């Protein structure tokens, strides 16, 4: 594994998946690659965690799925953001903002 890569932080996987879908629908591998891309290659999502998370989020009604054709004409299952998912993303983003602020405050204390 690339030393700069790290597994995704506990509790942020949902947020990352939601974020990756904002720009449009993606299949599983696509989501994985997109997260790598938007985090500048820092975060890698393993498929063993990705798929259970996707299925859970679908049941929560945050994302929905459909079968479509991939860029090189293979059938693949695509996921897309729902309204509830968008809302969830806002909640998580706000929460994450608070956490990072609090942690950086804590670390700046001398």
């Amino acid at each position, binding site marked *: 594994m690339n030393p700069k890569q790290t597994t995704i932080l506990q509790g942020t996987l949902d947020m990352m998946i939601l974020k990756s879908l904002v720009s449009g629908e993606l299949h599983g591998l696509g989501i994985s690659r997109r997260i790598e891309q938007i985090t500048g290659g820092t975060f890698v999502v393993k498929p063993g965690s990705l*798929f259970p998370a996707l299925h859970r989020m*679908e049941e929560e*009604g*945050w994302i929905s799925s459909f079968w479509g054709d991939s860029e090189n004409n293979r059938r693949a299952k695509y996921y897309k953001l729902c309204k509830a998912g968008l809302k969830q993303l806002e909640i998580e983003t706000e929460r994450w903002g608070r956490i990072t602020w609090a942690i950086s405050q804590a670390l700046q204390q001398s």
Partner: protein
Amino acid sequence: MPLLAKAQSLLRNLFRSRSVEADLNEEIDSYLELAAEENIRAGMSAKDAQRKVRVELGGAEQVKERIREQRLGAWVYSVFADARYAFRQLRKNPGFTVVAVLTLALGIGCTTAIFSVVYGVLLRPLPYHDPNRILAIFEVTSKGRPSRLADPNFNDFRDQNRSFSTIAKYTQVISSVSGGAHPSRSAVAYISPDFLKVFETQPILGRDFIASDNSKGAAPTVLVSYSYWRQYLGSARDFSQLHLKIDNEIFSVIGVLPPSFSFPADSDLWIPADLTGESQSRTSHNYSAVGRLRDGVTVEQANADISAIAHRIHDSSNEKGDYLLKDGTVIPLQESIIAKARSPLYILLGAVGFLLLVACANVANLLLAQVSSRQRELAIRCALGAARRRIIRQFLTEGLLLSLLGGIFGVLGAFAGVRALVALAPATLPRLDGVSVSLPVLAFSLLLCTAIAAGLGTFAASRATSEDVRDGLAEGGRTQAGSQGTQRIGRVIVVAQVAITLVLIVGAGLFGRSLLKVLQVDPGFRVDKIVTMDVSLPWVDGEKGRTERTAFYSNLLDRLRRIPGMRNVGATSGLPLSGGHPDGMFLLMSQSEVPKDFSKFGELFQQKDRLGIADFCAVTDGYLHSLAIPLVRGRIFDERDGADNTNVAVITESLARERWPNQDPIGATIQFGNMDGDLRLLTVVGIVADTHEYGLDVPPRPTVYVNLLQRPPAAITLTMLSDADTPSVTTAARQVLQELNPELPVRFRTFSNVYSASLGSRKFNVILIGMFGITALLLATVGVFGVMAYSVTRRTREIGVRVALGAATFDVLKMVLGQGMRTVLIGVVIGVAGSLLLTRTVESLLFGVTATDPLTFSGVTLLLVATALLACYIPARRAAKVDPIVALRYE
């Protein structure tokens, strides 16, 4: 919106699981392909690319399983899957399944049957409104025992208490009743007018009693039970012509009570208690009493209230002596009805609980063997991604399936068992009519099944998951090492089984020995070849009634004596072993001191040197002859004792010894008129041997026998000693009575039936606990055998090596037997210790043996060890015959 989405996916998961699964498979496959293609484009060989993505995924089945587990409704699906899988498992091992289910059915069935009795008799609430607030009220005697109430004391309780909204007195008498379809001997309750209000019940037809119905000289009225109304009164709705003759008095029917109401037990008729006035004596304990608590009053408060009133009565009454109340007390009515039944029934429940434990232990042992043989299968499931808790749940499901199957068969058996129990139960057990496999009983059984399932499932699961998965996958080699833990647990189970079984059999042994001891008691009278006949005449006061009764009884006795084959006929006011006699204080007196009425008695009872206490019983000489009660000294009644001659009495040996130590009671004159209202003095003419009137296990009580033909009671029992068979005696005697008075109802019994009924509750205990004990012994034997046989099979190779190295047959035999018996002996030691602790609780039900009876303990231990030895011997012999060549090739 999310809610709707959730519902949609739930429905999809539950009802379209096949397409959901296909979808998942396809998704993962397509991912793998896409990822592999990506790698190929990056320059990998196809093989390397595929390998890389598989490693990245980390096991497709595990990922899928994780997704499945978090699906909505996954538990429903997996429960079904578990159940299906469990069912398949059970079907795959029919031998195991049948044995386990039948063993559980036996345990659950017996427990359910006994619990039906416990529930029906002890726990089932009385069928009245708010039954917990109905209390039984008692006087407390100078000896501290609860007793019935005297009229003036009841009146004081009624008028002075602040705890009860209503309070009523009642008593029950068996009377001859005619006027219905045919004459009957019916239980008639004498009640005060508020009686039904205590139970908050009302006649379903007609009216309840009002105060004026109960006043002295009021027109006699009667309430009838629903069943009497149906059976004897043809369900008539017009009461104007309905009259019943009870003890020669005509009563008008005024109402019919609801079918559910039968208190006091078995009553058919209820009449006002005080039509002939109340007794003025504070020491004539004629009535029981019940009351309904006022709202907000506790049982303790009511108790204090009644006790305070009783103390006031005690302190202010001019009637003194042992028969005046010392205190008062209340107990919940249900409690007072079932008090005596409680400990025997709970002992039975405990015993059957032990049996259930032994049965479960056997099943646990079977499961243990099952689990070891499934080790490989479990390892494969784990390797394929089954979580540990999933495996645990799988075993719980299997346990539940087993115990539910066992429960179903058990409960079906219990339906038959309860019928047998009710038929077998002693007549002294109250509330038997309500004993059945009712809903609460079924709920109990279901709970029992669940508990067993949880126990067995957890046990199996803990065994199954205790070993490393990789060991399970490794082929062969470890079969011996790995079985050691299993074997140890198996032995622990056997130890427990042996210990529990020993306790159970010791209990059965103690009860059995008690019964034998009771049967050895000489009752003091003969039992065989005697037919008894209960007859009661209407009561007529005074001299005239007495003469009529004497004439009737002499006539009846004469005619009965003439029946062919009749050896002897007698009569008594109370047959032994059927309820006992009234007891009271008598006075030593001379002819010149005879009091005119009872007013002097209070004062006379103060004079201690005159006083004696005895049971009172009226008999004929024929009674003493027919029952072969031997004369010790003096004489018994004969022709000299005509109805108008000097009244004579015969006393028992124990009374002579207690009241006249070192003196001769013959010739003494006593006054015992307080028992039958006849103030003529009695001259003691003879002493007869003691008899066990109250039961073989109850010591004889000092008794005064008076001459039944001089002082005839209203109800008598005739004792007919005949060589002829019972039906012909009965027919002939019935014929005789018909000729004398066709309106008199009659009841026949054989004295030997009365005798064995008096042993009913002991026999009930012995039969049931004995049966449980034997069953437990069989189960435990199977348990010991199973564990030893399994152990020998597992060790065949080892034994083969030993034999090959020179071990003799005897050495192998000794080794296996020694190992088995060590286990059994540990169980025996624990069992003996447990028995010593537990038998103390049944001490009060034993007779002639102590709770630690050495003979029982050693006998039972011997029996158990011998049986276990046999169970170990068979596998040991097989071990001894192991052929080393075969054994070494064994694996």
